């Protein structure tokens, strides 16, 4: 049977946007998970503003470097696919996942807004909560992309 009718052609190769979502999911989970654990494990009072900013800056740099390396690998393995514009399916999946992330962010921020005042949260705790909310929303966005490509997309 010729290659055109071969099932392997249909089933092979994950879409580029799904690969990027997996990379983003792993990176955000590991980097910001590590950042939150490190920050929360620090003895209260020992976490100075400078240390907090340094840790956050380090997390951003590590995430950026990992994403840049990952995208470089994707581009090197499939230059044409990397340069190609998003098609209608990619845009549909992006729209669905962004919507899911938006409502997640709104929900988490709302819940934090309700909870934080009762704990007399310090400034850095509020900032930490905001970073956590954004990380959760980003994870939901990546998961929604992956699920949409696999089930509906």
């Amino acid at each position, binding site marked *: 049977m010729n290659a*055109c009718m071969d099932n392997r052609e*249909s089933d092979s*190769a994950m*879409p580029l946007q799904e690969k990027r979502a997996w990379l983003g999911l792993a990176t955000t989970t590991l980097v910001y998970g590590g950042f939150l654990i490190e920050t929360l494990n620090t003895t209260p009072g020992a976490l100075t503003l400078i240390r907090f900013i340094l840790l956050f800056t380090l997390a951003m740099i590590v995430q950026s470097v990992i994403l840049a390396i990952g995208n470089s690998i994707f581009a090197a393995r499939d230059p044409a696919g990397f340069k190609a514009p998003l*098609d*209608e*399916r*990619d845009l549909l999946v992006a729209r669905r996942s962004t919507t899911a992330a938006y409502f997640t962010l709104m929900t988490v921020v709302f819940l934090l807004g309700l909870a934080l005042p009762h704990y007399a949260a310090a400034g850095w705790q509020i900032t930490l909560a905001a970073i956590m909310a954004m990380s959760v929303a980003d994870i939901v966005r990546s998961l929604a992309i992956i699920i949409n490509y696999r089930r509906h997309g």
Partner: protein
Amino acid sequence: MAERLVNDIRTLRFLSGEMTQGELGARIGLTRQTVAAIEQGRYSPSLESALRIARIFGKPVEEIFRWEDGAAG
């Protein structure tokens, strides 16, 4: 009644000089993976893409895409 959209794109590609999914996708502005998803029934193309596919194979849209009773499958 559970119905699903099926199509004959894979067969039509075969009959059109063994056109690959990538070649078909390039001609209608879709990625190879999206063409694969359409063939597998996991993604329903837009009307615009369905009309482009029909034009490439020289057939009416309803001859390429049709509803199939899920219970029969």
